[in-house]
């Protein structure tokens, strides 16, 4: 895995934080690359210390003109990388 200082998280989020949907939520404006965040997108979220892989479920209106992103937690990046290597979609 990359050094923590090298990790770029597409959408900062706290995996503990859920709302009435049962999904993790955060604000879209937390992302420095909001164009990468759209319903169905597979992204790296969390923080550089402990990122996680998530599927963007939806983006809904939040208070004061904000947008709230719901995330389905799929796992940790290491597992995704291992699986892609196993499938020979990434070099070993």
């Amino acid at each position, binding site marked *: 895995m990359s050094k923590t200082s090298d990790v770029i998280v597409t959408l900062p989020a*706290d*995996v*503990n934080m859920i*709302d*009435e949907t049962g999904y993790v939520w955060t604000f879209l404006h937390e992302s420095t690359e909001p164009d990468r965040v759209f319903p169905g997108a597979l992204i790296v979220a969390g*923080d550089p*210390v402990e990122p*996680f892989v998530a599927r963007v479920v939806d983006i809904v209106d939040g*208070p004061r003109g904000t947008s709230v992103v719901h995330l389905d*937690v799929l796992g940790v990046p290491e597992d995704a990388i291992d699986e892609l290597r196993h499938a020979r979609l990434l070099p070993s």
Partner: protein
Amino acid sequence: MAGDLIPIEDCLRPGEVLDPDAHLVMRGWPVDVAGILRNADLTRSRYSLAEEPFVAISAEVTIAGWEVDSILTGARLRSRRTYAIALVGELLAAGFDLIPTFEIPHYSLILPSYTEATAACLVEVFGEVKPNPYFRRREP
């Protein structure tokens, strides 16, 4: 004023009573001052309590059949290398409050103030983070 924030009162689960000496409060990483303040800031930007911004963080509680293991093996906390845990009574004694919100076993842990000192106190109550034995990945 809370403006168009969502009243957290609309998101409460009724009828749950915590045992301060038995029930445990758990939280996956981040369990540091910066992470706690970040979570609390997001929460107060979306929810209100008594028509004021709701300063709280998310946690899970061992209640109604939920145990440490079943919480740690859930989809969200299984992604955490580390977690922290404290007795409900320890948190209450330190001035924090807990209310049942959203899906069981989620609780909102209320911070008496949005300050680094309050977050540092919470970190101290939680104590040292522990390795999550259920954080696993396949060997390369």
